[in-house]
């Protein structure tokens, strides 16, 4: 299984009475392209934080790539996330004061187990940037000087650098027009196929579901927000 949630609940520690997530059972199979439909206010960010191990659920069982995330210690969670999960945000995918190369390198730094792995990093980064058709000269410039399109491609490169088994794309197309959106999703699908990576694509735009194998509607999965 790719993702398996069972009896998962989440409430902020500061406000324990208000349950934000309440999921009875949710399962996502491997080798499929998943579309998660989540309008704003449906607890989407919290769910993604739980799935990626940034936060732990208040109760329940969270299994991602057959690893019990609710049982892992914090530092193991961070390592697991760095090594196995690629993440693409709607915006702010790169740290603005680092150049493209350093941004990708940072992701590698968190995932690497040994110094040797870090040393081998440079070639992998170059190959990936080439695959994404990013001009190598631009990689030494601060990312804030690059165009939005370039920034997005570098963001994708960063998400793929550690050969993740799960890529979470959180509203990555919201700020794109129709054509750019289509080519972006096509690119993402192609990369996932090439790198043998499962895709979880999150959007509030239902019209995108045709690109994916399975559609999940968060307002049906999450029983917490029914007030």
């Amino acid at each position: 299984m790719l993702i398996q949630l069972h009896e998962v609940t989440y409430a902020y520690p500061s406000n324990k009475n208000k349950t934000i997530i309440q999921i009875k059972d949710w399962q996502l199979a491997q080798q499929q392209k998943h579309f998660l439909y989540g309008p704003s206010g449906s607890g989407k960010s919290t769910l993604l934080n739980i799935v990626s191990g940034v936060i732990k659920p208040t109760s329940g069982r969270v299994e991602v790539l057959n690893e019990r995330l609710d049982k892992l210690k914090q530092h193991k969670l961070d390592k697991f996330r760095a090594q196995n999960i690629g993440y693409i945000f709607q915006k702010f995918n790169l740290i603005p004061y680092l150049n493209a190369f350093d941004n990708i390198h940072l992701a590698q730094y968190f995932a690497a187990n040994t110094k040797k792995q870090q040393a081998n990093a440079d070639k992998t980064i170059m190959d990936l940037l080439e695959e994404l058709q990013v001009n190598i000269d631009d990689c030494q410039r601060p990312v804030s000087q690059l165009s939005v399109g370039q920034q997005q491609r570098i963001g994708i490169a960063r998400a793929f650098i550690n050969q993740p088994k799960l890529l979470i794309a959180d509203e990555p197309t919201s700020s794109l027009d129709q054509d750019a959106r289509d080519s972006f999703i096509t690119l993402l699908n192609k990369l996932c196929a090439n790198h043998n990576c499962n895709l979880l694509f999150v959007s509030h735009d239902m019209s995108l579901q045709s690109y994916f194998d399975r559609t999940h509607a968060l307002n049906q999965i999450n029983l917490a927000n029914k007030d």
Partner: protein
Amino acid sequence: MILAIARKSLMYRKSSVIITILAMTISVMVMLGVEHIRHQAKVSFSSSVSGVDLIVGARTGQLNLLLYSVFRMGSPTANISWQSYENLKQNKDVKWAVPISLGDSHKGYRVLGTTPDYFTFFKYAEEQSLELQNGAFFQDTFDVVLGHKVAQQLNYQIGDKIIISHGIGSTSFTKHDKNPFVITGILQATGTPVDQTVHVSLQRLEAVHTPAAFQRGLDLTPQSVTAIMLGLKSRIKTFSVQRAINTDKQEPMTAILPGVALAEFWQSMAVLENTLQIVSGLVFVSAVLGLTAMLIASIRERKEEIRLMRMVGASPFFIVLIIQIEALLIVITSIITALALLVACLAISKNYLLTQYAIGINPISLVTNSSFYLISIMGISSIAALIPALMAYKGSKR
């Protein structure tokens, strides 16, 4: 890696970082500067006399006697008779006795009448003797030896003739202008009140004041002197000699131990000292608060950046660490800048302090108290940076 990120992050927010560094630099400079000058002033102050076991004057307070005999400040209450000087000189425990006479001045600089023995026995700092820069110590009643600053400020050379005035201040109406003195020697700088003193022979001073008797060959033994500096054969006798002088039946006199009096005088300045330290401490506290405020503001605008780092795999500890390192980088940069500026400022003001206040300032050294201060500065800043760091930590767990 983490250091490079912290450095680039600071560079990215240059303007607020530079202002924070400036505030920090000023506070560190004030703190170290105050500490250094305080320390140096104390050293310089306590080195203004040494090798003198007792100073004897007319019955007065210990502080008053110290001020007029060593620092040429204020006025002597009364003189002591020449007979007392003779008696002390004959005392079996006394190795040497040097009389000094004050009360006249030359263009605002105090004139000190004494005997050639003064140059042999008077010491300053750590038993350092007075050295000549030019010329010779006076032998004859016509001679005058100038302190370093007097000669420098008034641009006097060996052989120049000068006139002394009665009383102090540069615009005295009674000038002893019929009796010029000839400069025979100029002393090296000492960083003590000696630099601002005009030394003449005691007999000559007496002659100036009694013009009728002014003829070579006449007995010019003075009637009285202002104070007497004593060197004892054995320091163990210091207190018994002091008691003997204080309880002298013939003349009411006071004897003080210069070291003790200096220390006591410095003690009385403790309020000033503490105030300076408190003020510099407060300046530092405000700079640390500025640093914390700057970091907190940066955490707000870096919310997304922190979220991104966490998602890429950064642990909450990494986030705390990066904020701490940024704070430390700011503090270390400030300390280095402050030290550089302080060294430059001291180098520039060294002469001014020496000539105006007779305080000799050495170049700053990090081995003394300063290193304690620097470590405290870094420690306090790290503690203050914990507030924004923990805020970032908490935010990153959302």
